[in-house]
């Protein structure tokens, strides 16, 4: 199979729609057809190396809120394809797991679950991978603050002997952060949190 273009894919998979892309071939695929589509892409179109699985959170008020993104590379004809698949439920998003057809998806999906809270149905061992097991939040969701939220320290005994806590990071004086939109005064990289002071810290 030489270079797959959208027309040849559309012929095979009627449910695909083309996705705006600044680079290579990109398609939207409904979640219920994702497994079927990826299996066929791997077996018949030569897209055999799953390089990346991730997701985008389009913020709380939009629907569909979460979009799963897959990048697959062909080791034979050296082309990428991007597959985007919207999660149906905004409150409890889920997608079918690709771990059965691409073992590489196993860890990537665990990461996306950890960071975004998307459940991958059929994943052999869906648990947190980067944060610790009991961490209550999904940090890459848009409403989660960069500085973090106070939660119990991962190990209770260490928390007691060392008096350690998981606290929000002080956002003052550190690397200045910028916002995506707003007036120029708001966009400008700056310390967002003015409440933290040395005095407060040593209290």
């Amino acid at each position, binding site marked *: 199979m030489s270079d797959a273009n959208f027309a040849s894919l559309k012929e095979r998979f009627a449910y695909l729609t083309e996705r705006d892309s600044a680079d290579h071939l990109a398609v939207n695929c409904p979640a219920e057809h994702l497994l079927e589509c990826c299996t066929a892409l791997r077996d018949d179109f030569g897209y055999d190396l799953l390089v990346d699985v991730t997701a985008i959170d389009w913020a709380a008020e939009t629907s569909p809120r979460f979009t799963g993104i897959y990048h697959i590379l062909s080791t034979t004809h050296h082309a990428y394809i991007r597959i985007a698949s919207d999660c149906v439920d905004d409150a409890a998003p889920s997608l079918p797991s690709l771990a059965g057809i691409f073992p590489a998806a196993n860890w990537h999906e665990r990461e996306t679950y950890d960071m975004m809270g998307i459940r991958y149905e059929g994943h052999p061992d869906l648990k947190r991978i*980067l*944060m*610790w097991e009991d961490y209550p*939040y999904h*940090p890459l969701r848009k409403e*989660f*603050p*960069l*500085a*973090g*939220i106070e939660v119990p*320290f*991962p*190990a209770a005994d*260490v928390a007691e*002997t*060392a*008096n*350690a806590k*998981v*606290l*929000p*990071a*002080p*956002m003052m004086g*550190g*690397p200045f952060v910028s916002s995506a939109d707003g007036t120029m005064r708001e966009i400008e990289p700056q310390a967002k949190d003015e409440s933290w002071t040395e005095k407060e810290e040593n209290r």
Partner: protein
Amino acid sequence: MKSENTTLGYNSKVEGEVVVTQADAVINWIRKHSVWPMPMGLACCAIELMAVGASRFDISRFGMEVMRFSPRQADCMIVSGTVTYKMAEVVRRIYEQMAEPKWVVAMGACASTGGMYRSYATLQGVDRIVPVDVYVSGCPPRPEALLDAMIKLQDKIGRERSVKNLTAPKAAAAAAALAEKEA
């Protein structure tokens, strides 16, 4: 003292084969010239720590080349890199496994204050879980900076009241715990 050109005001013919000094001085002298570091290599700084141990900077000039990865054989933990909350537990446990006396060097911005990683996952300075003796700035610090820190640590060891701590270690520990609680 067989040297012809001894600069010490000491004459073995007069005073015999004995040097009189303070116990503190002797103990500290021994301790500070035989620091066995435990490289707590976590991130980028660990590469500079390796550079310090390697040929060009050569930490063995200061008697510290005996890097021990077992905390039970080490007395100075060099925390080199970002300490995340997930890792903090491990760092603290390893610190507790080290035998007294023990010292901690926070190498680099991340270990000292969290550095450029002001985020939900990063512990904002290793001094929140273990007592730190020397902080080294830089991201990562140059090898010279770490060597300087180690020399500073030697100075610090040299000023300690070692005998007092030896004879009353429990009292000292209790006092330290009390002070920590109050702070």
